[in-house]
C-alpha cells in the first residue's frame, strides 16, 4: 500500500515538474518579438482596408445596422466601442487613432501598452461585424494580439529596445517566463484550431470523397489563380484533400516531437501558402504562418532576424555594430 502511495506521489511530483517546465521556464523573447512585429503589421493592414468602407461596415446605417446586429448578437457578452460611437467624424477619429496604435505595435513603441490598446480596438472592429463580415483572419489577429499582451513583446525587434540601447543599456533581453507563457498559449490555441478544423471536415462528404479541394479552387468567388487544370489530374486534388485533413487532424500531436515538428511546420506553411495564392486569401494565409512561428525556436529566429535588426539599429544610430551573441 505504501509502495502504491509512493509511486503515485512520485508520479504526481513528476507531472507537476513537467507542468512547471512547460509553462514556467523562461525563454528568449525573440519569437514573441517577431510575432509582435508581424502581427502589428497585419493589424495595421487589416484595419487600413476598413478605411474604404468605415461607415458602410461600422456605421449605424451601414450594411449591418444596429437593429440587425442587436438580434444577431443577442445573448452575447460582446462589447464594441462602435456600438456607441457611430457618427462618421467620430468613427474616423477612432480609426486614425487605432491605425496609429497598430503601427506603434508593429514597430514596438511602448509595445506592451500598445498590445493592450490594439487588442481592445481590434476587438471593437471585429465584434461590430460578427456575424456579418468577419472571417478567420480576424480570429487569428485577435488571438495573437491577446497573447502578445501577456509577455514582453517589445523586448526584441522594437523601438523600445532601440531606445534602451541609445540610452546605453546594451544588456541582452533576459529570458522571460511570461514570454514562454504567451508562446505556449499560442501553440496550444493553434492545436485546438487545427484539431477542430480537421474534425469539422470529417463531417463533410467532400473531404471524404476527395473533391473538397476541387470545390475550393474551382470556386470563382475565391479563385485568385486558375487551378481548374487539375480537372485533367483529379488525383492531385484528391491527394491534397486527404493531406489537408491529415495535416490538420494530427497537427496537435505531430507538432510537438522534435522529429516531426519541422515537417508539420513545412506542411502547414505549404498549405497556407497554397490557400493564399490560389484562393485569394493572402491575409489569412500570412496570419496563420505568423501564428505558426510560435513553434520556431528563439535561436532560429535570432539567427535570421538579428542581423536585420542589427543593421536597422546601426542605421538609426543605436547599439552595437554586430548582433549580440546568443546566450546558451
Amino acid at each position, binding site marked *: 500500500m505504501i509502495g502504491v502511495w509512493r509511486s503515485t506521489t512520485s508520479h504526481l511530483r513528476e507531472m507537476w515538474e513537467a507542468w512547471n517546465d512547460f509553462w514556467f521556464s523562461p525563454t528568449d523573447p525573440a519569437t514573441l518579438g517577431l510575432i509582435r512585429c508581424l502581427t502589428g503589421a497585419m493589424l495595421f493592414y487589416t484595419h487600413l482596408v476598413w478605411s474604404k468602407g468605415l461607415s458602410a461596415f461600422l456605421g449605424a446605417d451601414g450594411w449591418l445596422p444596429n437593429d440587425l446586429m442587436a438580434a444577431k448578437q443577442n445573448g452575447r457578452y460582446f462589447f464594441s466601442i462602435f456600438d456607441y460611437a457611430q457618427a462618421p467624424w467620430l468613427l474616423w477619429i477612432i480609426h486614425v487613432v487605432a491605425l496609429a496604435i497598430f503601427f506603434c505595435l508593429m514597430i514596438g513603441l511602448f509595445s506592451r501598452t500598445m498590445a493592450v490598446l490594439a487588442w481592445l480596438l481590434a476587438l471593437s472592429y471585429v465584434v461590430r461585424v460578427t456575424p456579418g463580415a468577419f472571417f478567420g483572419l480576424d480570429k487569428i489577429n485577435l488571438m495573437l494580439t491577446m497573447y502578445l499582451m501577456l509577455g514582453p513583446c517589445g523586448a526584441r525587434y522594437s523601438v523600445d529596445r532601440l531606445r534602451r540601447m541609445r540610452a546605453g543599456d546594451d544588456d541582452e533581453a533576459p529570458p522571460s517566463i511570461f514570454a514562454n507563457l504567451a508562446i505556449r498559449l499560442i501553440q496550444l490555441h493553434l492545436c485546438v484550431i487545427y484539431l477542430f478544423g480537421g474534425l*469539422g471536415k470529417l463531417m463533410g462528404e467532400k473531404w471524404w470523397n476527395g473533391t473538397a479541394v476541387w470545390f475550393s479552387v474551382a470556386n470563382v468567388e475565391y479563385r485568385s489563380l486558375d487551378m481548374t487544370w487539375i480537372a485533367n489530374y483529379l488525383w492531385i486534388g484528391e491527394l491534397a484533400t486527404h493531406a489537408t485533413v491529415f495535416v490538420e487532424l494530427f497537427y496537435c500531436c505531430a507538432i510537438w516531437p522534435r522529429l516531426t515538428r519541422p515537417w508539420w511546420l513545412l506542411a502547414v506553411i505549404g498549405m497556407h501558402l497554397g490557400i493564399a495564392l490560389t484562393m485569394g486569401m493572402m491575409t489569412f494565409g500570412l496570419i496563420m504562418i505568423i501564428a505558426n512561428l510560435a513553434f520556431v525556436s528563439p535561436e532560429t529566429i535570432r539567427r535570421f532576424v538579428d542581423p536585420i535588426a542589427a543593421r536597422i539599429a546601426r542605421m538609426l544610430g543605436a547599439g552595437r555594430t554586430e548582433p549580440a551573441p546568443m546566450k546558451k
Partner: protein
Amino acid sequence: MSVDKNKPTPQRPAVKPQAARGQVGELALYWRLLISLAVVWHLFVVFIAPMSVPPTSSTVETLARLTPVRVYGDPLYLNHGYHFFAPDPVVNAVVRYQIFDSGGQKTSEGEFPSLKSQWPRLFYHRHMMLSDQADTPIDPTGRMTREQTLRVTLTAYARHLLRISPGERIDMQYLRHNVLLPNDVLQNVDPNDPRTFAEELRLSVSRRDLEAPLAGLPIIKETPPAEPIPEPAGGQP
C-alpha cells in the same frame, strides 16, 4: 528549420540551458498555482467553443452555454468553431441589385462580391462575407427559416444601398453561384455561365420604407451556440 531546442519533447530527456535552469522557481508557488488555474480555465473555454458547434452532445452544449463560459469567452472573442471550409467547402452567393428612380428608370446597378469594384482583395473578401453570412441563423432555436433570415438580412443590405444612392426603389437578388464540376471545365463551360447561378431570393425596398423598423427580427431569449453553421444551401452541387 530548427525546432524548439529549449523545450522538452516526449522523445528526449528535458535539457534546459543553464540560463533557464533554476529560474522556473523565480515565480512564487502561489503565483504559479494561480496562473496554472487561469491557464486551465482559459484552455477549457478555447476548447469547449469549437466542441459545441452543432451537432454536439447536450453535455457539451450545456457546458458551452454556462454563464461563466460565455462571460469569459465572448468578450475575449474565443467563441469560435474554427470549422474552416467545413463540413464542406462553401458554395458562394452573389447579391445583385438595381436601383430605380420614381419614374421606374434604372439609375444604377451592381453586385457584391465583385472584383471589379471592390479592391484590395481584403475589401472584396469583406463583401464576400456579407453575401456568405447573409444566411447565418439569427434565431438559435431554428424558429426562423433560412428564407426569413435571408430576407431580413438582405433588406438591411438593400436599405444601406438605397441610403447612399439616388433612387426610389431597389430590387435585390440573392443568387447561389454553383461551382463547375471537372467535366464542365473540360467541356469549356464558362464558370460564370448564367446557368451556374440559382436565384434563392428576390426582394424590393422603397425609400419610404427606410425609417421603418426592420421587420421580421425575432425576440430571442435562448443563448446562441459558438458559431452557428448555416443550413445546407439548396444550390449545393
